[in-house]
């Protein structure tokens, strides 16, 4: 038995930990693009902001799309609720609220991540230090994940936490793909110019998959393979299919534990079936953008239904 408010806290704590890390990864990919391409850097930064869902808020504050501005906004700006600093702060506040549900190791790892990032992000980041800062963010969130997986009992507390992680992750991967879907379309991409190569690598890098891609597919980047990898691959930890495999599993644990199924179960199964049935060709035929658009919408609905079905409020 768990308080609805506690389930809510666990869910959002994990969404925000995931988000804190995703922001770092997006900046990392953007930085890479800006370094390898001298022209159109601002366009790349704009894509990064679009993927982060922060483009409107950014443009209200800045005119120039530079590495300094974007990384400041996405990593340390506390007026941006999705920045790494805001995210880790929100994650910690939620962790404080649900502290009795967490192991000491998990709580301490979150608290320490908050302390160290607060220190590190207190002042504007010197561009030369950016790689170090990005590494530190990824290391802190990895430590949280490590203590979480290493010490938490696999019960409903774990399930609600994982639901938060995977809903956020699926949303993030889908958005990254959606912002860049046009570079994956066959009509443009089969040419395979150097420019495209950078774009493709950037997509993979923003989900930390640029190396593992080569272990699964042949060495060359192919847009259909990239889309296949990020959408349909069962083993790739940030693919949509992977996320839904675990969302399905944790929702099933909850249904079994409580002896009750809800609307969220039907929604998750519907999305899962869609991912299972489709081949990447079907998805391209249907329209990649349309597919992703619907996916993001359904994924958001799943989050709302989980909140309602398990009395988060």
């Amino acid at each position, binding site marked *: *038995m*768990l*308080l*609805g*408010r506690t*389930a809510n806290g666990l869910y959002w704590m994990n969404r925000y930990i995931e988000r804190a890390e995703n922001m770092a990864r997006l900046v990392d990919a953007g930085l890479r693009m800006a370094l390898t391409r001298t022209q159109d850097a601002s366009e790349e930064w704009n894509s990064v902001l679009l993927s982060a869902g922060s483009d409107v808020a950014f443009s209200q504050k800045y005119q120039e799309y530079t590495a300094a501005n974007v990384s400041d906004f996405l990593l340390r700006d506390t007026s941006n609720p999705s920045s790494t600093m805001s995210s880790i702060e929100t994650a910690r*506040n939620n962790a*404080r*609220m649900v*502290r*009795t549900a967490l192991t*000491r190791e998990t*709580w*301490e790892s979150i*608290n*320490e991540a908050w*302390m160290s990032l607060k220190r590190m992000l207190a002042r504007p980041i010197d561009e030369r230090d950016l790689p170090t800062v990005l590494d530190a963010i990824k290391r802190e969130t990895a430590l949280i994940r490590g203590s979480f997986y290493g010490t938490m009992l696999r019960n*409903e507390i774990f399930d*609600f936490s994982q639901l938060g992680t995977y809903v956020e992750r699926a949303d993030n991967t889908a958005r990254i793909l959606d912002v860049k879907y046009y570079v994956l379309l066959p009509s443009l991409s089969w040419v395979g110019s150097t420019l495209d190569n950078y774009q493709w690598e950037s997509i993979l890098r923003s989900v930390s998959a640029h190396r593992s891609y080569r272990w699964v597919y042949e060495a060359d980047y192919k847009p259909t393979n990239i889309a296949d990898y990020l959408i349909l691959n069962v083993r790739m930890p940030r693919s949509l299919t992977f996320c839904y495999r675990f969302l399905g599993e944790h929702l099933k644990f*909850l249904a079994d534990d*409580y002896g*009750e199924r809800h609307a969220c179960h039907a929604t998750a199964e519907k999305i899962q079936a869609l991912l299972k049935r489709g081949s990447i060709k079907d998805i391209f035929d249907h329209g990649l953008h349309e597919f992703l658009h619907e996916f993001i919408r359904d994924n958001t609905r799943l989050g709302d239904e989980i909140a309602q079905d*398990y*009395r988060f409020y």
Partner: protein
Amino acid sequence: MSSEGSTRLAAFDEMLPEVSGLRRPYEAYDRWLKEQDPARLTQKMQDAERVFRKTGITFAVYGEQEASERLIPFDIVPRILSGQEWRRLTQGIEQRVQALNAFLDDIYHRQEILRAGRVPKDLIARNEAFLPEMIGVRPPAGVYTHIIGVDTVRISENEFYVLEDNARTPSGVSYMLENRETMMQLFPELFQKIKVRPVENYPQLLRQSLAAVRPQSAIGTPTIAVLTPGSYNSAYFEHAFLADQMGVQLVEGQDLRVVEGHVAMRTTEGYKQIDVLYRRVDDAFLDPLTFRPDSALGVPGIMDVYRAGNITIANAPGTGIADDKAIYSYMPEIVEFYTGRKAILGNIPTWRCSEPDSLKYVLEHIGELVIKEVHGSGGYGMLVGPAATKKECEEFAKKLQAKPSNYIAQPTLALSTCPILTEKGLSPRHVDLRPYVLVSDRIQIVPGGLTRVAMKEGSLVVNSSQGGGTKDTWVLDD
């Protein structure tokens, strides 16, 4: 008579009194201490601070944006009491706690003590802490105040006094537990050498104690929950800590509502009945339908459930009347009235400024006394005569004359001292002691408590909100 500035009071040092030399309870510790490398001790002091910060044992300070989370200073020298000293002290506390519960039952029922003229009627009827809603209500198992923190001070080898009876929602017990935990982590070898009575089982005792006062409507194992005002409350850490250690839910008002005559919490599987609520929310906020209507921290209708006998609220609403500062001065009479014996533990002599003779005395001796507001707490709004300037005394005298009934006065006591570790070695500081008492069908006192210490040399104010620190408190198993 002292005038301005600081007055050094000759205080009794619990480790090394000037006259008689090292006291017995400290002998083994002193031997160990002399073998230690000072640099290692300094290192341990820093370790302790790191442990506290890492685990997030902080308290929020109101009105301080920057330092919104601060550590209470911890000193690594334990405060040590012998088994014999402890037994004497606890006898007095038990008697006092019995009297407090008897007084509450009487005050909300027959009011014998008022009829007997031992406590003035006015003091009760016009007191904000007295809840008319509790008249005629008998809590489950007849217990009003379940968890009490009796603040005691010592002034000599054999003289302990009660400074305050915290009978509403005493806090600080988590520090008692974490202080011990930290000491055991820092100095495991000490605990092998010296037999210290354990305090670690407090959460289990608390849980058993709460279960024992469950309402008759509870079926099977009672469901217990801790009610907190929320994660922004200054004592939130303690609320979470206790819920965690007891293995019960930590709830907020927004989680609760009345369902079919019972208080229930919203869970992922629907509403679940609660039988015993250990609330850390003040009376005024408990039920917006009965008390403050703007409260979002409580549960609308909980008082109806309570009056119907379907939930235990610990501590009961209205217990504040027993630890009110105006009532405090009557405690010797109260103890004698209900237990038939003289109070074992003394009160600090108190002048009630509402009485003309006392007021006259207080005004004449203002420079020697500590004057407190009847309803104040946390060390705010008080005058420490010997440390105040002539001008401050004169201004305070005007306030006093304007509303005498708002004040009580006490002599400035030389609180006992206990050494703390400073950069220059051991140095005495004034301390007090808050042992924790649990009341159900029996009275249990955990051997130890929270020792608060004024970190500033010469200071008598031990409150954490005023820069006080804490120490681990040892009761020897001898």
